[in-house]
């Protein structure tokens, strides 16, 4: 299934490359150069579950740094294809991986069909979660964004878009398969979701944007850790951005057929733009539930930061986080750290760029 989808996308790319009219090619890229340090050597801080190393009192450059290269090919008004290579620290390697590769067809009446490897729309800004330049914060809060490690899937997606008065509506129905690797208990374990079904609804009106979605993974499993079960991940989010004030918040829940990994989580973030400067603050909370986490305390994050649009295409960001009980965030924790987790302060600086 996975191979087939990619083959279809590649075939679409190659097939149309020979079209008589000549397709339009566009290359672009994005990236982040980031440095992180914390105030403890008792545990390492990481951005997500797919990282096997993190930052402690000594500076680490791998937590946030990444490079993305994207090619867009437009064959005609109907057919186009997108490929994206992403290089970052995840799944035990720093090498480039194919994050996306899909062909798409613009169908009549506002429908669009995509086949190949593409983003799994589990959050409000899933589609650009690697693109630091597009976001106000230095990194998305792991209490929410860390809960769905598979950022892309292989399969198909049917999209419908329409405009009702001043409201732009988009619905995406996706089906396919996803895989990623989680670094848990000092070893990589494969997270498999062989049958995914996802619905994502977005409404945008003026400065407002709202999102509602659910992703079902039938037979989801973490090999060697959690047996196969049905995993239901639901989220709701809203954003207001009038150019000066930005406020956004999301709430997400995970429920499983065997009640193994379950959770409720949310974040709220707000920022105010003063010309090229944008101070912001984020709070988030993750409440573990289910049999695996029995009695585990909530994770809490408070972060303050500053985005500075330094020059054309480059934003510089500073962020200070206070992290408490970061289930997603900490690895290689010492016994004393695990016994009574302190509040860890994380200091980050990053340059986000696009080209």
């Amino acid at each position: 299934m996975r191979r087939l989808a990619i083959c279809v996308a590649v075939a679409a790319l190659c097939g149309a490359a020979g079209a008589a009219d000549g397709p339009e090619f566009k290359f672009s890229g994005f990236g982040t150069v980031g440095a992180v340090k914390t105030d403890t050597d008792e545990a390492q801080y990481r951005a997500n579950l797919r990282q096997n190393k993190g930052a402690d009192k000594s500076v680490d450059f791998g937590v946030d740094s990444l490079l993305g290269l994207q090619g867009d090919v437009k064959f005609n008004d109907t057919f186009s294809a997108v490929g994206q290579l992403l290089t970052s620290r995840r799944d035990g390697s720093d090498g480039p991986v194919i994050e996306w590769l899909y062909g798409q067809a613009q169908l009549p009446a506002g429908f669009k069909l995509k086949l190949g490897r593409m983003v799994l729309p589990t959050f409000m800004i899933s589609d650009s979660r690697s693109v630091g330049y597009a976001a106000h914060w230095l990194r998305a809060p792991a209490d929410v964004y860390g809960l769905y490690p598979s950022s892309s899937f292989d399969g198909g997606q049917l999209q419908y878009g329409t405009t009702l008065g001043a409201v732009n509506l988009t619905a995406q129905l996706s089906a396919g398969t996803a895989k990623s690797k989680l670094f848990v208990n000092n070893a990589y374990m494969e997270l498999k979701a062989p049958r995914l079904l996802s619905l994502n609804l977005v409404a945008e009106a003026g400065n407002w944007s709202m999102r509602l979605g659910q992703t079902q993974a039938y037979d989801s499993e973490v090999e060697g850790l959690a047996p196969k079960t049905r995993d239901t991940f639901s989220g709701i989010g809203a954003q207001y951005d009038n150019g000066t004030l930005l406020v956004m918040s999301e709430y997400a829940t995970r429920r499983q057929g065997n009640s193994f990994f379950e959770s409720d989580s949310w974040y709220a973030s707000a920022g105010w733009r003063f010309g090229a400067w944008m101070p912001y603050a984020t709070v988030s909370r993750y409440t573990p539930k289910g049999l695996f986490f029995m009695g585990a305390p909530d994770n809490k994050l408070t972060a303050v930061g500053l985005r500075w649009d330094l020059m054309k295409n480059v934003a510089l960001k500073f962020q200070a986080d206070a992290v408490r009980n970061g289930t997603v965030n900490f690895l290689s924790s010492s016994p004393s750290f695990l016994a009574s987790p302190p509040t860890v302060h994380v200091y980050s600086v990053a340059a986000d760029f696009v080209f």
Partner: protein
Amino acid sequence: MSKHITILALLAALAAGASAADLVVIGHPSAAALTKEQVADIFLGKNLSMTPVDQAEAAPIRAEFYKLVTGRDTAQVKAVWSRLVFSGKAQPPKELPDSAAVKKAVAADPKVVGYIEKTAVDASVKVITPID
């Protein structure tokens, strides 16, 4: 202190200058009128049913247009489009060298929307949104 007041006065003057803009949004002679909000949606990629075209990146009219219609400066608009580009949804508006080129593109395609100085309007295009 007096330095701050001077800067504030300058900023106020700049802001006042920008609001006295004489620019208009133009479309094909057969195009329907659009509200300012609709134009903002088109130029921020929220509504992909029309094709926006931009003026040159350094042209003052471009910064002025986005400030007046979307309330955003050019860096913010760049961030908005980078999200759309890197989610594979859309490409940013094509950049044209001057108002004459914008008029030509608009006159040639009923789906194209552009913005030019009020004084540059002629019979080849139609003002679909006046900006005050």
